[in-house]
């Protein structure tokens, strides 16, 4: 029966996070303070000129707009993916196609080393060292911002993208490469037109898994993003992500109160999103296996 512990875990996670978020939908006391509509539509608050999205859960009139957090998460995630995907896929391509045995024996363990670095250490490095460098190099106003958090986050994503992509490139049958070479294609032509398309679903899976990790990663963004819930598109502004909001605020809320319920609701959103990206990644890997398996 222990064998079903993982299924039980998944179900229990869903049930018990959902249970704490459920009052948001039906509890009348909590719904006086916050509703789904109040979270997702701009509200006219006293002292503001126009309806706005504001996340200010600890104030005289608590405001729970989710958009600043969601946009913050997307911003940081996008930056991290823009760094991690070229580096991860590029390095994987290099290792599988160009690197000799000795070089491979250096790059692969180094990436594994990076994968083993706890995220709190990456957060520490971003906060103490990288933030200062980036601020000096780019002349930014705020030391901690979406850019610093995104770049630091990419360090956690690179190993995920690299490992899955490298495996995918390695799984392309030799016969494909040989056939392409026999037809007179140059090495780069073989790589671009044969190897990459064949490994495409695997690489996509790596990117999907990396995306799930980036959206859910907590300690790095908690430490390096500045944690200001500002709704803006600029990467130089401080941001507050969904995960960092839960981490920073849950310890100080009243159990069962409106704020508590909203934080668990944000947890349900995170859980649902990563579940979706994981299933997508799995689907892509399965498809690649079937495709390559069917042809061989």
């Amino acid at each position, binding site marked *: 029966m*222990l064998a*079903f*512990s*993982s*299924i039980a*875990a*998944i179900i*229990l*996670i869903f049930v*018990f*996070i959902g249970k*704490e978020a459920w009052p948001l939908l039906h509890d009348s006391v909590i719904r006086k303070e916050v509703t789904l509509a109040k979270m997702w539509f701009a509200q006219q608050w006293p002292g503001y000129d126009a309806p706005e999205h504001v996340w200010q859960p600890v104030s005289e009139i608590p405001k729970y707009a989710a958009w600043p957090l969601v946009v913050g998460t997307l911003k940081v995630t996008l930056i991290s993916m823009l760094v991690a995907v070229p580096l*991860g896929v*590029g*390095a994987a*391509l*290099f290792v599988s*196609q*160009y690197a000799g045995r000795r070089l491979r024996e*250096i*790059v692969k363990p180094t*990436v*594994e*080393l*990076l994968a*083993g*670095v*706890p*995220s*709190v*250490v990456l957060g*520490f490095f971003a*906060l*103490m060292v990288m933030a200062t460098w980036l601020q000096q190099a780019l002349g930014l106003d705020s030391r901690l911002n979406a850019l610093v958090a995104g770049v630091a986050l990419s*360090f956690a994503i*690179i190993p995920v993208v*690299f490992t899955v992509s490298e495996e995918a490139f390695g799984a392309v049958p030799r016969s494909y490469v040989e056939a392409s070479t026999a037809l007179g294609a140059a090495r780069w*032509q073989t*790589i*671009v037109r044969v190897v990459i398309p064949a490994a495409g679903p695997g690489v996509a899976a790596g990117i999907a*898994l990396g995306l*799930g*990790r980036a959206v*859910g990663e907590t*300690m790095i963004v*908690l*430490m390096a993003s500045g944690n200001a819930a500002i709704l803006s598109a600029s990467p130089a502004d401080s941001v507050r992500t969904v*995960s960092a909001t*839960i*981490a920073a605020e*849950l310890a100080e809320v009243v*159990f069962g109160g409106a704020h508590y319920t909203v*934080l*668990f609701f944000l947890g349900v959103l*995170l859980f649902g999103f*990563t*579940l979706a*990206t*994981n299933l997508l990644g*799995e689907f892509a890997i399965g498809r690649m296996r079937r495709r390559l398996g069917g042809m061989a």
Partner: protein
Amino acid sequence: MKRRKPARRRRVGDAVLAVGTGLAAALVLLIVAVILGDVVYHGAPHMTLAFLTQAPREGMTAGGIFPAIFGTVALVVLMTLAVLPAGVATAIYLSEYANPGSRVTRLVRVAVNNLAGVPSIVFGLFGLGFFVQFVGAGIDSALYGGRRVFGQPALVWAALTMAVLTLPVVIVATEEALAAVPRELRLASAALGASRLQTIARVVLPQALPGILTGAILAISRGAGEVAPILFTGVAYYLPKLPTSLHDQFMQLGYHVYVLSTQSPDVDATRPILYATVLVLLLLTFALNATAVVVRSKMRRRFAGAAS
């Protein structure tokens, strides 16, 4: 003259792709080197025996990190006790008993893979909602007449939360180890009249032990480094004494790094301590990972020898 052009295009194309991907690889190496170099350079001078064995003093601007090391070790020991039986049982079911094509097997596999992708902060929410508020409060009302003993963040709940998080690590490693045990050994055992259970307990599991160990070590390394899952389930900012029972709170290395780097009253005074703490945490996780790699390669060699 006409024939030279495609040849040059070939060379240029190859050079662009090789240099481009090579640069990506070099950049990744550089990132790792800079991070590790910075931590070792600033952290090593302060990592003394006294630092490892003393408690923090003067608002954590002096003294050592012993309580955090102790808490981390206590956490991963309890976690391992919980995760190993569950993880190994799942792996045995998947590789020895389950029909690989069946719907149930596929479901278990999907669950394992998805569990691996759940964000660590969600595990923290789960630990608070399930272990602390449901199981813990349930124990309190049943055994302690509603007095708060287990119904609050505690070492045992943090360890169990971490066990759920590391479950996929143990399952995947154990399954791999079981799959690597040669079929001949199972057949030989069956031919001698051993039942399936006897074969698994006396032949397969001992052979797979190094692989299971690898999984346990990787899980410990992960559990020692994660912070988000324990934020609401038992970790404490500062405690004057070490945890002595399952329902005590505890200090932990990763959380200590977080606290020192974000909530220090005096950043300059804390910096050497902070760097040394990071170095200890890194050394701990790297040493565990390196051990796992060594054990795994030994296991592979053993089976490679047995097959030939």
